[in-house]
């Protein structure tokens, strides 16, 4: 049984090569125009932008990122459980209830803290 990952690897190479090759190929084909002047300015509705666009931004984005890590990892833990569920049966149900219960407690706490509110 050959590894199924070999075609995937080849496909990955193809999928990455296609846009890159097209990009380079058409760079050679299309009329060579160098954009100058205002064309190169970042878009800000026609006025020069004030300040760079790479400052620190609102902390809420980090909160969401952290919450995502927690909840998504949790979801990943559920995958093997779900696959093996028919084997685990009642035992699986109870353990997962404990697991999800802890998650839900955390969730409720976050909810009440207002951490899930965007504004």
């Amino acid at each position: 049984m050959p590894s199924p990952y070999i075609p995937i690897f080849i496909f990955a190479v193809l999928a990455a090569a296609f846009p890159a090759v097209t990009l380079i190929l058409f760079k050679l084909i299309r009329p060579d125009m160098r954009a100058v002047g205002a064309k190169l300015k970042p878009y800000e509705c026609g006025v020069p932008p004030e300040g760079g666009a790479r400052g620190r931004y609102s902390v809420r984005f980090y909160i969401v990122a952290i919450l995502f890590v927690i909840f998504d990892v949790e979801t990943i833990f559920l995958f093997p459980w779900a696959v093996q569920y028919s084997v685990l049966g009642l035992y699986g149900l109870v353990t997962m209830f404990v697991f999800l219960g802890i998650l839900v407690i955390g969730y409720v706490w976050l909810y009440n803290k207002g951490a899930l509110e965007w504004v």
Partner: protein
Amino acid sequence: MAEIPTANFPNVETTVLGADEIILNMGPQHPATHGVLRVKLKLDGEKVVGSECIIGYLHRGVEKIAEHRSYQQFAPYVDRMDYVAAVSNGLGYCEAVEKLMGVEAPPRARVIRTILTELQRIASHLLWLGTHALDIGALTPLFYCLREREEILKIFEKYCGARLTTHAFRIGGLQYEAYDELEKDVERFCKDFEQKVNEYEQLLTENRIWVGRTKGIGVISAQDAIDMGATGPIIRASGVKWDIRKAFPYAAYDQYQWEVPTGKNGDTFDRYLVRMEEMRQSRRICLQAIENIPTGPIMARIGKVLKPPPGEVYHSIEAPKGELGYYIVSDGTTQPYRVRIRPPSFINLEAFDKMVRGHLVADVVAIIGTLDIVLGEVDR
């Protein structure tokens, strides 16, 4: 990062955990600023902590032009201010000059003026609804609205040959007699329109997303609205039952039965409802007006050369956007000494900062949309 003089943003709050505030320019080249409005937003994350409207990109010096044109010559210029409600602008100007000269348009002219102006109000509101919905992300109502607006523009085209900047009225009355099927066309439009408005409402009014996006957004209390000089649907949505058509009736409005719709909360949703109801009321006025258009002349007896006696007059009408006033000073010559136009959009826009504070970027476009500004009028 950016150093911006805080004088532009009074009462700036400190931000959460010292994130950088972003200065974001919305406009003049932005899909949702209805032309060339530039709004400078100070953002904490996505929350607006300060705003400043920068206008004037479309300033053409209409008031200065007026001083170098005769009274009649200036009339087409006013069409270019609120270019989506040219008929209303023309009505205001013609009536103001008539008042200045002490003449009155004949009854037939007044009724036809009323019909066309109300159609224009519907057209203007339709365009507002379409673009406002588009700003909030509903793509489809725009096309439905433009479909109905097209019918109105066709009536204008049949009447005076122009669709947008119509110059439909003349000082002293009308240039053109109503064409034969005017009544029939208006009636057909009105008959269809009833169901069309319901259709828009079906798409939006009870849509949870629409309600979520508009309820409680851009609230302005009646007190604030009066203080900021807001007029038209904005002040009505705040609960002030005030409409120049009722307060100082002009044209033929005193002859018809209709209501002034008002809102309670003064938020975007109420302004939406008020405008929807206004369209229905305009339809009602049109239907009554075509019932009985008086016969007779359409032009008052005025000379070819207009020389209003010296003096001044202020006359205002209820344009679709609010109170459109003309303050004209005559020095007895053929040219106005000074024409001052009180643009409803300009003054309504002033309330923007008050409305937008504390909202998110997405609400900014909802609020600009609900103010229903036309930059041609704001900047003149």
